[in-house]
């Protein structure tokens, strides 16, 4: 299956491990991901003010690229796969808004001029939705190294689940990652904090707020006995992972817990190279070695 894949800027910079492991996991599942030859920033969700057409240009332009790929028969259908939660949310919402509002769509088309008109035919999907669609048995059949004995805490954050109409799962009781990790052979640690905010929106201006919110989640994971936290978003990854050094300065009892992208553990379970663990902070390798997985 050949599918259009929109990576987004973060996947090519701070979240290269997410990008790399996405390709590894997809390959094991028989999915060929193809990036548009030209793509631009998704536009980022906070820019999606309803009354400003300018901010829709970025996401819609990316969707035009997908229609072009489909037209050129480079991909098998009109889905575009996303990974970064921010990109997913932005593309999904911009797509829905533009399709629902012919006036807005008209203005976008007018402004873009030289681009072909967006037909509104693209379906934005998250990689997790795609995997779920394959069926858990299918996933299970690809596992060569079950994640036996690994206690996984899946963390969803906000943008994958909210607003409700664009979420990939029930915002109050999501289960897609739980189902995935069970299929991969891991032990899932459930906890109500899995869909709480990590504080990403305060990451720059109110660092202490972000640190506090992140710490609550980390503490819950640790108290629940998790070996590892799994995320599906580069911002969550940064707040829960990279920020631990700073959190440790203030929370002396906190020992630290590795945080990885869900695709990294998929790649591991599927026996693939290209897990990208070397980029993670803190280093997840000791825990995975201890569990006999590396």
């Amino acid at each position, binding site marked *: 299956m050949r599918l259009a894949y929109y990576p987004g*800027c973060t996947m090519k*910079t701070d979240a290269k491990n997410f990008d790399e492991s996405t390709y590894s996991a997809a390959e094991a599942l028989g999915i060929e991901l193809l990036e548009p030859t030209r793509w631009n920033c998704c536009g980022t969700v906070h820019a999606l003010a309803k009354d400003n057409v300018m901010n829709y240009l970025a996401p819609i332009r990316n969707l035009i690229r997908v229609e072009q790929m489909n037209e050129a028969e480079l991909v098998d259908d009109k889905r575009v796969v996303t990974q970064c939660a921010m990109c997913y949310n932005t593309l999904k919402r911009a797509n829905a808004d533009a399709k629902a509002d012919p006036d807005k769509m008209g203005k976008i088309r007018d402004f873009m001029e030289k681009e072909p008109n967006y037909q509104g035919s693209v379906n934005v999907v998250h990689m997790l939705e795609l995997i779920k669609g394959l069926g858990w048995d299918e996933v299970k059949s690809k596992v060569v190294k079950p994640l036996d004995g690994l206690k996984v805490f899946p963390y969803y954050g906000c943008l994958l689940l909210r607003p409700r109409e664009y979420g990939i799962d029930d915002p109050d009781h999501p289960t897609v990652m739980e189902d995935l990790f069970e299929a991969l052979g891991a032990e899932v640690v459930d906890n109500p904090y899995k869909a709480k905010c990590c504080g990403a929106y305060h990451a720059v201006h109110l660092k202490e707020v972000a640190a506090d919110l992140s710490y609550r989640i980390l503490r819950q994971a640790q108290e629940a006995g998790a070996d590892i936290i799994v995320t599906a978003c580069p911002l969550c990854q940064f707040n829960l992972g990279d920020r631990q050094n700073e959190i440790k300065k203030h929370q002396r009892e906190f020992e630290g817990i590795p945080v990885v992208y869900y695709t990294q553990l998929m790649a591991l379970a599927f026996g693939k190279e290209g897990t990208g663990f070397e980029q993670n902070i803190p280093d997840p390798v000791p825990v995975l070695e201890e569990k006999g997985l590396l």
Partner: protein
Amino acid sequence: MGENESEMVTIHVMGKKHEVPADLTIMKAMEYAGHQFRRGAGCRGGYCGACAAMYRVKGSYKLEGALACQKIVEDGMYIAQIPFSPAEKITYDLSELKPDANTFLEYYPEISRCLSCNTCTKACPQDIEVMDYVQASLRGDVEGAARLSFDCIGCGLCAVRCPAEIVPYNVGQLARRLNSRYVIGPTEHVLKRVGEVEAGEFDADIDELKRSDRKTLQKRYESREVKL
């Protein structure tokens, strides 16, 4: 065909009306109208970007950009030259930089304001995908930004039009230097030859040629091996 037979058109240079031959470039039309350039003219061949101009044609709302030395006048054209683009080029030591997204963001943080509106691309008289190379730099794709921006002549029209106040041509210049220095790197056979020259390997042969009389030189030249 002399100028007497040329069809004439009307243009407005900074609001002043002139009748000029229809087949002239903006630059030559302005000269024909009596203007002597001090600013706003350079190579006159489309290589230097000194003659950026903006114009509208009667009956159209479109604001177009062009190089005055390359664009043929049209009847009813309103022309303004943009001989200077106010922009700060940051200074840096290339040997201390890293070829990644952070370098671009550190020096030109405004690139993160890019709306992907593509106005820069539409303004480019070289038909460069300007927005695409700004976007490439934003995600640290140094090679892509360098390749896409390569034909940039620095006319400044993209920077004048950008609603996010980005100066794309400065970003492209940084990308190309980073790409050459770090992604491509030096050439082995060049370094080797520099070493050989420094070691004096060719001194004796060249000395001999320098001492030769014209007749000997001519003989050597006419009979030299040509390997193309």
